[in-house]
């Protein structure tokens, strides 16, 4: 049954609707006051997010283990063998080790590229209900971070700084549907545009229809004017499949990112670049071939029977 409201209630609804439309209009027109509310909210939320991250990370890990039940079972067998104290120490050590490895990798990449970086801890991931692919860092403008700075992990590009407060920054991940960046194929130098799709794969569209792309091609950032937001030569991803549609005007391909966007604990923000385009120098090294063990066979010659043993055999 449809219910009709009183005139006063209807007036309230109209007033609130008009207010919301006014806010939308002001925001679309770029009124900074409206946008600064969000920055203020981020500043307020930051301590809660840090606290939540510290308290609820173990719960998150628990759910993650359930999702990967096979790995969790193996871990469980291992855990049952140790006592409680050792378990806690081990978990803590593993956590630190993981972050240390990520930090070492990212600093190694930054060192090879000659970038001045500042490292940060990821304190929150986005809310998928908002259809945004972002993460929040525990550093902000007080550490020199500004908008449009590139964020990298040890394996390559993670995203770009979207907004900053004094002690936090929101990073738009390269998987965000609104994310686009210029890339080139290492080796052939063919250029293209990489677009996020809200998932772990991305779409590459080559600018020149005559260029070639094949599975396994490595993509590097093409670089932006003044190296902002992207310095050139950063590893981005690898081509996993090529769309060979004959009717298409440009060639396109599916790409998988080098950086594991879902499990970043530590990342670095590039503050400045020292050297020019490193070309293909930052390309990830191919995995070293597994050494084949050399089989050594020892042969001990059987001693020849002596005359005495021969006569014994004949008598016996």
């Amino acid at each position, binding site marked *: *049954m*449809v*219910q009709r*409201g009183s005139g*006063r*209630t209807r007036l*309230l*609804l109209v007033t*609130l*609707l008009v*207010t*919301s*439309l*006014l*806010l*939308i*209009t*002001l*925001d*679309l027109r770029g009124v900074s006051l409206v*946008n600064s*509310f*969000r*920055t*203020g*909210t*981020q500043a307020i*939320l930051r301590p*809660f*997010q840090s*606290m*939540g*991250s510290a308290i*609820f*990370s173990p*719960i*998150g890990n628990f*759910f*993650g283990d*359930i*999702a990967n039940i096979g790995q969790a079972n193996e871990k469980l067998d291992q855990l049952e063998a140790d006592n409680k104290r050792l378990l806690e120490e081990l978990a803590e050590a593993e956590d630190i080790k993981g972050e240390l490895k990520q930090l070492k990798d990212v600093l190694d990449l930054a060192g090879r590229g000659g970038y001045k970086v500042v490292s940060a801890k990821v304190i*929150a*991931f*986005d*809310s*998928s*209900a*908002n*259809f*945004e692919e*972002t993460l*929040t860092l525990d550093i902000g403008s007080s550490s020199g971070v500004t908008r449009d700075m590139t964020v990298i992990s040890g394996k390559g590009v993670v995203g770009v700084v979207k*907004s900053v407060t004094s002690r936090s920054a*929101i990073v738009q991940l390269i998987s*965000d*549907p*609104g994310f686009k960046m210029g890339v080139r194929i290492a080796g052939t130098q063919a250029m293209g545009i990489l677009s996020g*799709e*809200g*998932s772990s794969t991305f779409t590459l569209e080559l600018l020149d229809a005559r260029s070639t792309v094949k599975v396994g091609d490595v993509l590097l950032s093409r670089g932006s004017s003044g190296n902002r937001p992207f310095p050139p030569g950063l590893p981005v991803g690898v081509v996993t499949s090529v769309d060979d549609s004959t009717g298409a005007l440009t060639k396109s391909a599916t790409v998988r990112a080098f950086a594991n966007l879902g499990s970043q604990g530590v990342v670095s923000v590039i503050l400045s670049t020292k050297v020019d385009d490193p070309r293909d120098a930052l390309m990830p090294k191919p995995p070293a071939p597994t050494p084949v063990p050399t089989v050594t066979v020892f042969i001990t010659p059987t001693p020849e029977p002596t005359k005495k043993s021969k006569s014994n055999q004949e008598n016996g």
Partner: protein
Amino acid sequence: MSIYRTSITVSFFVFIFILQAAVINQIPFFIEGFSLFLAVTFSWIASTERAETFATAFIAGILLDLSPSLDAPVGLWTFTLLFLSYLISLYRESLGDLDGRPMTAALYLLATTSSALLIYILTAALLGVDVPPALRAGIDTAGNAIWTLLLSPLYFPLINRLKLRLFAIGKIRSGG
């Protein structure tokens, strides 16, 4: 809506907003994410009178619009929630009292939260905001719908009781 009720509503939704950002968003759900904020908003609205429904939707919408990770213009969530609250208020009598009917309550929450997400993304697309591909948006909405449905027996009665208690204290204080 009295000052007491407004302040209680604002405080409650600010708390849920922080809870969503600090706790719920940290949990890696197996199937996409869960918007506790939306689920609580529609649980709260379910047993609210018409004028209060609009005010509640406005408060909740403004808070959602202040989410720092949003790209969409401020006011879009407010508009979406106001529009849905209007639809809910039109059919309130048909819904009846949901407190003693968990299945109907779960379906009501499923329909309202999913509609809110879909209306939001459609409006965002119309305004020229970058939105994910339709399949991705569908998966996100479906994931949220599943969690809203599964967890509704936990939070829906809790919200209703909490609301009754909070507003009852207000009545005693004001001598009403």
